[in-house]
């Protein structure tokens, strides 16, 4: 076994002292003691000077959440929701108590060797040997240092917690990316700031940051200045001077020295991926968020190297700590340990009598669905835990029995204060979803069958059997469901939320390919060949191209010859025509629509310019394939022709009325192209009473979710700052606890599980999300009169008033008054009828309305 001598060989080396690493080391320390060792068989290596670097970097007093709530903690360290300080303090006490062999400032530069004898090279040229290695390094990476003398001075920092913490200092910000620009702008509110850019201009930051920083530098009244084409040469610290730092620059005019209080370098970070790959660990693809393949015991493709925590795809603290515990147990030889989520799976499969144990259930699901076979054990387990399992029984005693059993289980869980988790029991013939509903989940059939039928009979109904999946259209394009899904005999379904599915598609090429292919088949069927069968269409899929466009990309240009049409899979395309040398917007085509169809139906010359109005994906069908598809017997060309005629008439109408075209352009510019439900105010009726905002605040905990005055206006039509309930909500993209949801009727809302991470706030291009503290309760009229302070109806004070709040700011946004029978409060409260909420089907009324 392991020996420890001059060559320092450990049984287990854990790299990274974050939540996962600490938890693994605490377990290993305990197991070491249990086995009666006098010296530690483990070592925890951390490159930073303290434990839990990411959390140390949180701003002071930050409230840390303990998500996901449904998962129990299994660790020798304490962890519960609380302040950053308390959590760090607890961990410090606990790891000392556990006797972890922790080495700080021990950055691992490389890992080589093989299972049983790994060699780790540290930054200080020391080497360590270990039989097994656990990587718990996280994904944040290490900040790039300045690389000049003085880079380690205490007043040189590589991150900024709270810009408001500094006042009346001279601060030098080094860098030209978003982080540098944001820091510099925020700091310049109460400090003199110099931003140092190595290049002659800013090109990396996002548009808004770019405009803001350039304007601020140009404006002599701001306290922000910029040194272009400049590099830091040296930093000298003299604590007796004020300011204490002296920074020497290489500028185009020669060397220059500036005295300052602080240097903040934001030069990006070196991603952990390079380090991981250097050990021979492979990632399934080159996507930024790809996760290395691991087995059930978190072991990577390199035997003896285990990966836990966010690097393994589990970004939440509790998950990481549980994995740390488990991995140490596995490595120390505990082969029977069940992961803490075992119980969760048991509940999920509790209503399916023919799957006796969760592990068997998982195995059967995996075996029956070709797509699932591509997943690694861990990934599949995670997928099922995040999904809902449904089972259909025929109406009768069996259904009633199972239903009763599940209801009892849910009651028990509720009594224990848990979120209910159990199999969903449906009866055969029950409708799973209706056409027009906004679906955010993806269904996989594990057993039995499901019937899909359209409302208008445009596509014949069909029966899908085990191994198939459905709901991919809403997943990929964000469109409402186009068909009705009905549970068939004995069906067992895995219903996976959109976010999990997107994550999976990003990390698994096979899954992406099979979903893509099925989407294509069903789109071809819908657009051109309703009666064609799947095998018939399968041969076309390889010949249909997928084109990804960034916002602003041109798909085709007016006047050029073309030989293909495009189906918009997601996003939107703006069609413009040149009229008197001006590009006039004639149509906006959203997901599910066709563009350029005339090129394959006769006239090869394009009569519009097609440009992506937002990021979009297109399916390209060439003339040859198109003709093959529509020349099949029984393929009706007439509906297709009618659609073309209608669209071209609409475009012609738009072209002859520049005013209407301008209105269309304005609406699309305001983001209505991707909206499903938007608040529109007729300024010629709005008296500015703000009753809409007051009503919103009054019905939503005291804070209005709309800002009437802000937003854009054209020809009396005002689009205020308020949620547009986008087709594919930007806010939903990176929500760690999956707190942003879409109801079947389309409203996008945030549930109680928000952890206040601000990702949605940053992702929303319409500024429709605010972060607020729980506002104080509004006083009753009597107390209000007694105090003679307070506010009139509507808004009550929130964090903006500067009150010290112990709780953490959470994200809020418009929920379109979901579930309120009489409709949204803002519209109901408008005394003059100036405020309405509309969906895309009514834009035409705005465009057609006669205006001055």
């Amino acid at each position, binding site marked *: 076994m392991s020996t420890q001598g001059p060559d320092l060989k450990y049984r287990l080396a854990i790299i990274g002292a974050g939540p996962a690493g600490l938890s693994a080391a605490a377990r290993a320390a305990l197991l070491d003691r249990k086995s009666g060792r006098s010296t530690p068989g483990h070592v925890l290596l951390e490159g930073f000077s303290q434990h839990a670097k990411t959390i140390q970097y949180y701003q002071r007093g930050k409230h840390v959440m303990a998500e996901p709530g449904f998962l129990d903690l299994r660790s020798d360290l304490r962890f519960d929701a609380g302040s950053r300080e308390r959590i760090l303090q607890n961990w410090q006490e606990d790891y000392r108590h556990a006797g972890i062999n922790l080495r700080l400032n021990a950055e691992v530069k490389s890992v080589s060797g093989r299972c049983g004898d790994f060699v780790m090279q540290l930054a200080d040229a020391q080497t360590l040997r270990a039989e097994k290695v656990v990587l718990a390094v996280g994904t944040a990476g290490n900040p790039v240092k300045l690389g000049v003398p003085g880079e380690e001075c205490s007043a040189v920092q590589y991150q900024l917690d709270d810009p408001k913490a500094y006042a009346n200092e001279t601060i030098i910000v080094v860098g030209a990316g978003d982080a540098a620009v944001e820091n510099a702008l925020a700091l310049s509110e109460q400090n003199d700031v110099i931003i140092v850019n190595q290049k002659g201009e800013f090109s990396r930051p996002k548009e808004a940051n770019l405009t803001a920083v350039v304007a601020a530098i140009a404006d002599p009244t701001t306290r922000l200045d910029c040194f272009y084409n400049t590099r830091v040469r040296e930093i000298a610290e003299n604590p007796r001077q004020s300011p204490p730092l002296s920074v020497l620059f290489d500028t185009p005019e020669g060397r220059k020295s500036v005295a300052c209080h602080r240097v903040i370098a934001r030069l990006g970070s070196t991603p952990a991926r390079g380090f991981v790959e250097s050990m021979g660990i492979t990632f399934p693809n080159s996507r930024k968020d790809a996760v290395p393949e691991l087995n059930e015991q978190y072991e990577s493709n390199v035997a003896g190297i285990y990966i836990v925590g966010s690097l393994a795809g589990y970004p939440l603290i509790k998950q990481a700590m549980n994995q740390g515990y488990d991995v140490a147990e596995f490595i120390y030889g505990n082969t029977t340990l069940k992961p803490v989520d075992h119980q969760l799976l048991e509940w999920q499969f509790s209503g399916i009598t023919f799957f006796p144990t969760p592990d068997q259930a998982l195995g059967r699901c995996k075996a029956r669905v070709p797509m699932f076979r591509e997943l690694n054990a861990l990934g599949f387990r995670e997928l099922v835990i995040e999904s809902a399992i449904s089972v259909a029984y025929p109406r009768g005693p069996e259904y009633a029995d199972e239903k009763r059993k599940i209801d009892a289980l849910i009651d028990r869980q509720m009594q224990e204060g848990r979120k209910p988790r159990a199999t969903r029991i449906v009866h055969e013939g029950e409708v799973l979803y209706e056409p027009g509903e906004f679906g955010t989940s993806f269904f996989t059939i594990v057993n039995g069958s499901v019937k899909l039928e359209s409302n208008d009979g445009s596509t014949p109904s069909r029966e899908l059997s085990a191994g198939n999946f459905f709901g991919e259209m809403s997943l990929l394009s964000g469109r409402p469901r186009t068909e009705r899904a009905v549970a068939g005999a004995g069906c067992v379904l895995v219903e996976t939320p959109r976010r999990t599915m997107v994550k999976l598609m990003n990390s698994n090429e096979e899954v992406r390919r099979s979903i893509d292919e099925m989407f294509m088949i069903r789109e071809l069927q819908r657009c051109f060949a309703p009666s064609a069968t799947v095998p018939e269409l399968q041969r076309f899929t390889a010949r249909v191209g997928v084109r990804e466009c960034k916002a602003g990309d041109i798909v085709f240009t007016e006047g050029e010859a073309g030989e293909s049409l495009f189906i918009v899979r997601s996003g939107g395309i703006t069609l413009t025509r040149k009229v008197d040398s001006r590009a006039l917007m004639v149509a906006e085509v959203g997901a599910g629509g066709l563009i350029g169809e005339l090129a394959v139906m006769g006239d090869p010359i394009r009569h519009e310019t097609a440009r992506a109005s937002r990021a979009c994906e297109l399916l390209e069908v060439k003339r040859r394939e198109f003709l093959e598809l529509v020349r099949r017997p029984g393929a009706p060309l007439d509906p297709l022709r009618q659609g073309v005629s209608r669209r071209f008439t609409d475009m012609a109408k738009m072209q002859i009325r520049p005013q209407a075209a301008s209105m269309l352009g304005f609406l699309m510019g305001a983001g209505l192209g991707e909206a499903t439900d938007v608040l529109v105010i*007729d300024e010629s*009726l709005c008296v*500015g009473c703000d*009753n809409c905002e007051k009503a919103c605040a009054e*019905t939503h905990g005291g804070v209005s979710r709309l800002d009437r005055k802000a937003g854009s206006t054209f020809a009396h039509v005002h689009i205020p700052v308020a949620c547009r309930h986008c087709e594919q909500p930007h806010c939903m993209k990176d929500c760690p606890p999956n707190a942003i949801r879409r109801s079947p009727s389309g409203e996008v809302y945030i549930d109680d599980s928000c952890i206040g991470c601000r990702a949605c706030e940053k992702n929303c291009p319409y500024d429709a999300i605010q972060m607020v503290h729980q506002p104080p309760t509004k006083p009753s009229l009597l107390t209000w009169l007694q105090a003679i302070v307070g506010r009139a*109806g509507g808004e009550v004070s929130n964090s903006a008033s500067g009150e010290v709040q112990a709780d953490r700011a959470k994200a809020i946004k418009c929920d379109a008054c979901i579930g309120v029978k009489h409709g949204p409060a803002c519209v109901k409260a408008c005394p*003059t*009828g100036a405020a309405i909420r509309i969906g895309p089907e009514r834009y035409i009324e705005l465009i057609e*309305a006669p205006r001055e």
Partner: protein
Amino acid sequence: MFPGVLRFAQWRYLWASGVLTLFAAGLYTTQGGTHPPRGDTWQGYTLGTVAALMMLWLALLGIRKRRYASALGSVQGWTSAHIYLGVAVIPIATLHCGAHFHWNVHTLAYSLMCAVVISGLFGLLVYLSYPRQLSVNREGGSRSALFAELLDLDRRGRDLAQRCDPGTAIAVKSGIERTTIGGGVLAQLLAIDRSEYNPGGDTSSTNSDQQAVIDLVAARLPRAGRSAEAADLQNLLLLVCRRQAVLRRIRRDIQMQGWLRIWLYGHVPLTFAALVGLIVHILTTFLYW
């Protein structure tokens, strides 16, 4: 798409109040006998009760407007009904009293009610005409955008003035510093401009609508010594003219927004006065019968 408050639900409440008024007129004509029609016949009592209930209901809009979670119709519907029934209350109350007016509390109550309705009609006029004018005046921007533009013009104006002769520089800079916007209630509502500037020495002279400074810069232009100065003065002239245009917009915006708000400060207290008058009217009618 936006029917407006008058056309709400295909003029539903116009029809309703029209029918109600006709019904009241019909009832009025049924009063026979030796006396001229008055409030003390059963028809008169009926009409009086209807008018009193209407007044109470009209006042309830203030409460409904603040019941944001209420499912009882939309505020727009209530407002539409409020307007038409509010107008109808005058003929109905007149029919109730048979147009008998004297110097007493009854006529006082009637006059107060009329004052409420007239103030309401004034408000309606403002509500119907000003939003559109406001929108046109702001040209799709917001008031804060206008102020941002003004601040930018101020800054550039000062820089440019600095390059001109001392007299022009002092006049333009003082003109910028002593520009007044808003002020008291009257100044806002009437868009009174008390801007001043320093035409030279230590004096102060009126610069209403920025005209004096514009004239001064324009007068200086033909006397420019150097071509660079002439160019600066031309730019300055353009700039002060733009300031004038922006300031006019801001004042107009403040003025119209002021009128949109101020009328309620008459309408609401008058409503309370009219309700008190109504109570006094009813009490005295029954006490001193």
